[in-house]
C-alpha cells in the first residue's frame, strides 16, 4: 500500500461513492474519478503484468501515454478489452481485470522474469522459427499479449458517424489551444476546440495559474463561451486520432455513447502539449515509479496521493511544483536534481543537487532508491526526464521534425505540414510563452493573453548505455536498454530497424513515453546525433480507437444493404425463403427446390426476374456503341429481335453475358446479369464519353423501374392466354420482343429463356407489378404451375449448360473458352477486348474450357479439382456448378478444364478434401441438346 486519498483535495464528488472490483476484490471510488485515480487512491500498486516477462507493473501516466494500466472492463454484461485506466471514467459496478495475467498481484508466469537473460530481442523469432513456429505459436500467444476478447460479447453498433466543417480546428485545450481558439473566435471564425481530457485547461487544471490577472478558469470559461457564441464547439473526452488527406481529421468522442467525427478544417492549430519522459536506471519499471506530472495531476484533480515517503528525481524546473504540492499534502519529500544550478528548495522539501538515481530497489513495488551511493527509503518515486512534444499529428500530415537542442526536443519543422504548432507541442514550455504562441497561431492581433511566471529550465537527461542492471526503455512491449544495445550490435541501427527488431514503440501507447529514449540510446551507442539517427514514421491512429467507433452503424443488415424486390411482400406471402443473390434479396425456395425444378419442366414455372439488368441504350449512335462495347455485334439485329452476347474487358476476359433487345432502330435494352449491371453501365459510359460523340447516344439504367416476371415451361403460353395477355405477346417466337399494353399498362414481353423451356420475360412498370402478379398467379393456380426460387432456377439453367459469369467463368475465361469463337474469327471491326483475344496466351490450345461432367451417385462438390487418373497429381480444372437434376434423375455439373473440349468422353479423377471420385467429360448441355423445347 502506498497511494492514499487526501481528505480534502481533488474535484471528486465525495457524496457519491462508486463501488468497483479489481481482480475480484471490492473497492470504492468517487464520482469524478478515473480508473487510474480510484486505484491509486485505493493503494493498489500492481495493476498488471508486462507483455513478455510478466513483470509486475503499476500506474505511470495521466492520459493516452499510459503504458501499463490497461484493463478489461466489464459492465452491464459488456466487456471492453484494454481500456486505458487514465482515460476511462469510473462508473458504479465496474469489474476490472488486469491484462495478460489471471491476477496481477500473483502471477506464476512472473518466473519468466528470472529467465530474462535467455529472452533477448529476437528470441522468439530465432528460437521458434527453426522448430516450426506453428507448433509453438499457441503456447506463446497464451503467455503473451494484452486483454481478452469475449467472443460472446456483441457491443452495440450504435456509434454515430458525424461530419463537420470549421474555419479553425484546435487540437488540445491547454493554454496554447485556449489562446488560439479565443483569438480566432474573437474574429468571428467557427472554431472547434478538442481535448482528450474531460475538461478544458490542459496542465492548468493541475498546475494552476493566473491569466490576464485573473484565475485561469475564468479565462478558460470565457474562451469556451466565445467559441460557442461564434458558432463553434468545444468537445472534451475527445481524442483526435488521425490526420488524413485533404485536411480531414478523425476524432473519437467518448461518452455514454461514443461519437465518431470527421472534421474538415480550413486551418488547424496543433496544441497537443507534451508528454513527460521517464528516467533510465536499473528497475525503473517497478510499481510505485510514476511520472511526476501525473502524480500532480492525480493529486490535484482527484485527491489521489501517490505515496507517503516520496522521492522526486528530475533535471528540470517543472518538477518543483510537484514536490511542493506533495509536501503540502503531507508527504515526506526528497528531491534529487541532476543539476547543480537549481531553483530554491520548496517549503518542506529536501533538495539534493547533482544527484542521479542508479537503481530502484523492491520486489513487487518500490521500497528504496540508490542515488550516488546513498540509500533512501521511499514507497514512491516520481521521475521527470524532460518533455517530448506531441508531434504525431503534424507528422501524420506529412510534417518533418527538427532537433532543437535548446528545447531538448524534436519539434515540427515550420511549413512542412498544414498544422500550426503552438505551446508545448512546439517545444515551447512555460505558460506565458504558450499563450503568446497560441494567440499568434489562432491569428490573433493585438496583445496576447498574459501570465506571470518564468519559463522552465530543462537539462537534457539520457539513458546511459554503460548503466548497470535492467533498464526499461519501453515498458509496454518490455524492451530494455540491453535489447537496444543488441540491436546496435547486430546492425539494426536505423530507427526503423530498431523498432522492428525490438518492437520498441509498437505497443498500444505508440511509444509516447519511450520512443525518445530508444532513439537517444541508439544515438549514444552509435555515436550519431539524434537528427542523424532519425525518427520512425508516425501513422494513425494516435491512440487505439474501438472498432465499434470506426464501424459505426455499418453492421449486420446495414453493413452492405441488399436491394429489395418490389414484390417481396407478395413472395413472402407465397411462403418464399429469401437469400442473397448478387446483392439482391430474392426468393431462394418456395416449397421444395427439386419439386419446383421438376414442376417447371413438366408444367409451368414462374419466377421474379426483376434484378435482371435493363440498360437502355438510346440514340442514333446506339448501335455503334453496342458494337464496340460488345463481343457480338448488335447493329445487324433487327428491331423486335433479341440476341445473346458477351461483354469483355480490354484484357479479353468475359465480364458479363446477356441478351440485347432491339426495340427500334435507335433503342436497345441490354439485359446485364443482375450483379454486373453497374459494371456494364460503366463500360458503356466510358466508351460513350471517351470514344464516341456523347450527344448521339445515351445510356440509362432503368433496372429498378420495371418489374420482370418470367413464365417458363410447356404450359407457359397457355398461362399467358389464361391471364389475358394480348395476342402479340402469346404469339411471340423465340428471341422476339414486343412492346405492348396489358389493359392500359405498358408491357414489354421478350421470348428469352434461361431455363431451356419456352419462356416469356414480362416487364411492367414497378407500380403496376402487384396487380400484374395477381393475374399471373391466378393463371398459375389454374394450370397447377409453380413459383420457383433461385435454387430451382440454378438447376434448370445448369441442366442446359447455361453459365453464370463469375461462377462458371473465372478471371481468365475468354469467349472462345465457352465455345463462342465466331465473332473472334469473323469480326473485322474494332471492339472492346478484341486485341487481347489474339495474344499468345489467348491462342493456346490447352486453355481452360467450359465442359459438362457426367458422374454416378451424388452431385460432385462445387470447387472440387479435376485430376488425371494416373501420373503425377495436378489440377486440370475445377467444378463450377453442380446439382441433382430431378428431371434427368442424375447429377449434372459444369466445369472449367484444361483443353476440356479435346477430352470429351475422357474420365478424370475428382478430388475434394481427401475424397476421390471419377467423372466423365461431356458437353455442357445435359438436357434437350437440340433445343426443341425452345422452338415452340
Amino acid at each position, binding site marked *: 500500500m502506498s497511494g492514499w486519498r487526501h481528505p480534502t483535495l481533488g474535484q471528486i464528488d465525495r457524496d457519491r461513492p462508486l463501488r468497483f472490483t479489481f481482480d475480484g476484490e471490492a473497492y470504492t471510488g468517487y464520482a469524478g474519478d478515473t480508473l487510474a485515480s480510484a486505484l491509486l487512491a485505493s493503494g493498489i500498486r500492481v495493476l498488471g503484468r508486462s507483455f513478455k516477462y510478466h513483470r509486475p507493473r503499476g500506474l505511470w501516466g495521466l492520459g493516452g501515454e499510459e503504458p501499463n494500466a490497461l484493463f478489461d472492463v466489464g459492465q452491464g454484461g459488456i466487456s471492453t478489452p484494454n481500456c486505458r485506466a487514465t482515460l476511462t471514467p469510473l462508473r458504479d459496478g465496474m469489474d476490472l481485470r488486469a491484462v495478460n495475467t489471471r491476477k496481477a498481484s500473483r502471477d506464476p508466469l512472473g518466473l519468466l522474469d528470472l529467465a530474462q537473460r535467455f529472452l533477448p530481442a529476437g528470441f522468439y523469432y530465432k528460437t521458434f522459427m527453426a522448430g516450426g513456429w506453428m507448433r509453438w505459436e499457441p503456447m506463446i500467444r497464451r503467455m503473451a499479449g494484452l486483454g481478452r476478447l469475449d467472443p460472446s460479447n456483441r457491443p452495440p453498433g450504435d456509434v454515430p458517424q458525424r461530419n463537420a466543417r470549421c474555419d479553425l480546428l484546435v487540437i488540445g485545450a491547454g493554454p496554447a489551444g485556449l489562446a488560439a481558439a479565443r483569438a480566432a473566435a474573437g474574429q468571428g471564425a467557427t472554431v472547434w476546440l478538442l481535448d482528450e481530457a474531460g475538461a478544458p485547461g490542459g496542465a492548468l487544471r493541475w498546475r494552476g495559474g493566473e491569466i490576464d490577472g485573473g484565475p485561469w478558469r475564468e479565462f478558460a470559461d470565457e474562451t469556451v463561451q466565445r467559441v460557442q457564441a461564434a458558432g463553434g464547439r468545444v468537445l472534451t473526452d475527445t481524442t483526435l486520432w488521425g490526420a488524413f488527406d485533404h485536411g480531414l481529421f478523425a476524432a473519437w468522442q467518448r461518452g455514454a455513447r461514443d461519437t465518431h467525427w470527421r472534421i474538415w478544417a480550413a486551418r488547424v492549430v496543433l496544441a497537443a502539449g507534451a508528454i513527460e519522459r521517464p528516467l533510465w536506471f536499473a528497475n525503473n519499471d517497478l510499481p510505485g515509479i510514476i511520472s511526476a506530472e501525473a502524480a500532480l495531476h492525480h493529486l490535484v484533480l482527484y485527491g489521489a496521493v501517490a505515496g507517503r515517503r516520496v522521492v522526486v528525481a528530475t533535471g528540470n524546473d517543472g518538477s518543483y511544483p510537484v514536490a511542493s504540492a506533495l509536501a503540502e499534502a503531507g508527504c515526506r519529500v526528497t528531491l534529487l536534481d541532476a543539476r547543480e544550478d537549481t531553483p530554491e528548495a520548496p517549503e518542506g522539501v529536501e533538495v539534493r543537487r547533482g544527484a542521479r538515481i542508479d537503481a530502484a530497489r523492491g520486489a513487487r513495488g518500490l521500497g528504496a532508491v540508490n542515488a550516488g551511493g546513498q540509500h533512501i527509503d521511499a514507497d514512491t518515486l516520481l521521475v521527470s526526464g524532460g518533455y517530448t512534444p506531441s508531434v504525431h499529428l503534424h507528422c501524420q500530415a506529412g510534417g518533418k521534425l527538427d532537433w532543437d537542442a535548446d528545447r531538448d526536443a524534436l519539434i515540427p519543422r515550420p511549413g512542412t505540414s498544414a498544422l500550426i504548432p503552438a505551446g508545448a507541442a512546439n517545444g515551447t514550455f512555460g505558460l506565458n510563452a504558450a499563450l503568446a504562441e497560441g494567440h499568434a497561431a489562432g491569428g490573433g492581433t493585438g496583445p496576447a493573453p498574459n501570465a506571470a511566471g518564468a519559463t522552465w529550465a530543462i537539462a537534457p537527461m539520457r539513458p546511459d548505455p554503460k548503466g548497470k542492471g535492467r533498464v526499461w526503455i519501453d515498458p509496454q512491449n518490455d524492451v530494455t536498454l540491453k535489447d537496444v544495445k543488441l540491436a546496435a550490435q547486430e546492425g539494426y541501427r536505423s530507427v526503423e530497424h530498431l523498432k522492428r527488431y525490438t518492437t520498441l514503440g509498437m505497443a498500444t501507447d505508440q511509444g509516447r513515453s519511450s520512443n525518445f529514449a530508444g532513439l537517444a540510446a541508439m544515438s549514444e551507442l552509435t555515436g550519431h546525433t539524434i537528427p542523424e539517427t532519425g525518427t520512425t514514421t508516425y501513422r494513425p491512429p494516435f491512440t487505439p480507437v474501438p472498432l465499434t467507433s470506426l464501424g459505426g452503424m455499418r453492421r449486420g443488415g446495414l453493413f452492405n444493404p441488399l436491394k429489395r424486390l418490389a414484390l417481396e411482400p407478395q413472395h413472402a406471402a407465397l411462403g418464399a425463403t429469401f437469400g442473397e443473390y448478387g446483392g439482391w434479396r430474392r426468393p431462394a425456395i418456395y416449397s421444395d427446390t427439386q419439386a419446383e425444378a421438376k414442376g417447371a419442366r413438366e408444367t409451368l414455372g414462374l419466377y421474379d426476374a426483376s434484378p435482371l439488368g435493363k440498360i437502355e441504350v438510346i440514340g442514333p449512335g446506339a448501335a455503334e456503341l453496342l458494337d464496340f462495347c460488345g463481343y457480338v455485334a448488335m447493329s445487324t439485329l433487327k428491331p423486335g429481335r433479341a440476341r445473346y452476347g458477351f461483354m469483355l474487358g480490354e484484357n479479353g476476359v468475359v465480364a458479363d453475358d446477356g441478351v440485347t433487345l432491339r426495340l427500334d432502330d435507335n433503342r436497345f435494352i441490354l439485359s446485364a446479369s443482375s450483379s454486373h449491371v453497374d459494371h456494364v453501365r460503366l463500360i458503356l459510359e466510358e466508351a460513350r464519353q471517351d470514344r464516341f460523340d456523347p450527344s448521339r447516344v445515351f445510356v440509362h439504367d432503368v433496372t429498378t423501374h420495371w418489374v420482370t416476371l418470367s413464365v417458363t415451361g410447356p404450359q407457359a403460353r397457355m398461362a399467358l392466354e389464361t391471364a389475358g395477355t394480348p395476342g402479340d405477346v402469346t404469339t411471340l417466337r423465340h428471341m422476339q420482343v414486343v412492346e405492348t399494353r396489358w389493359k392500359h399498362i405498358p408491357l414489354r414481353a421478350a421470348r428469352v429463356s434461361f431455363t431451356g423451356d419456352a419462356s416469356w420475360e414480362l416487364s411492367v412498370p414497378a407500380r403496376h407489378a402487384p396487380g400484374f402478379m395477381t393475374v399471373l398467379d391466378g393463371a398459375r393456380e389454374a394450370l397447377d404451375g409453380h413459383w420457383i426460387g433461385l435454387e430451382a432456377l440454378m438447376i434448370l439453367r445448369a441442366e442446359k449448360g447455361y453459365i453464370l459469369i463469375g461462377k462458371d467463368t473465372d478471371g481468365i475465361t475468354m469467349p472462345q473458352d465457352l465455345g463462342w469463337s465466331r465473332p473472334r474469327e469473323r469480326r473485322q471491326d474494332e471492339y472492346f477486348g478484341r*486485341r487481347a483475344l489474339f495474344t499468345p496466351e489467348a491462342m493456346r490450345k490447352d486453355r481452360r474450357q467450359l465442359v459438362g461432367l457426367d458422374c454416378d451417385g451424388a452431385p460432385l462438390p462445387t470447387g472440387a479439382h479435376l485430376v488425371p487418373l494416373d501420373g503425377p497429381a495436378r489440377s486440370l480444372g475445377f467444378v463450377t456448378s453442380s446439382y441433382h437434376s430431378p428431371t434427368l434423375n442424375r447429377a449434372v455439373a459444369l466445369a472449367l478444364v484444361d483443353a476440356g473440349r479435346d477430352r470429351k468422353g475422357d474420365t478424370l479423377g475428382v478430388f475434394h478434401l481427401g475424397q476421390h471420385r471419377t467423372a466423365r467429360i461431356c458437353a455442357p448441355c445435359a438436357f434437350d441438346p437440340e433445343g426443341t423445347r425452345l422452338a415452340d
Partner: protein
Amino acid sequence: MQIFPCPFCGPRDETEFHFAAEAGKHRPEPAPEVTDSAWADYLYGADAPKGRAQEVWVHLTCGEFLLLTRDTVTREVLDVAALPGSREAGT
C-alpha cells in the same frame, strides 16, 4: 479522405469515385496491326508519375468520367474537366 471535384456535381468524397485510366494513352488499333508488346504495354504499362499526374476517374454516382490533374505526392487537385469524347477528337 480526399475531396474530388466532379465537373457535374461539385466537390464530393473520394469514395464516390473510381480510378479509370491514366490520361493521354491512345488505344492502339486496329487489332491486327498491333504487336503483342504494344498491346501489353497499353494494358499493363502505367507511368505512375510522382508529382503531377493526369488521370481519368469516374464519379460513380452520376456516371460521368472526368479528367483529373493532381499531384500524387501532395494530393493536391490541380484541375478537373469533363472528357471531350469524339466531339473534339474529331472522329
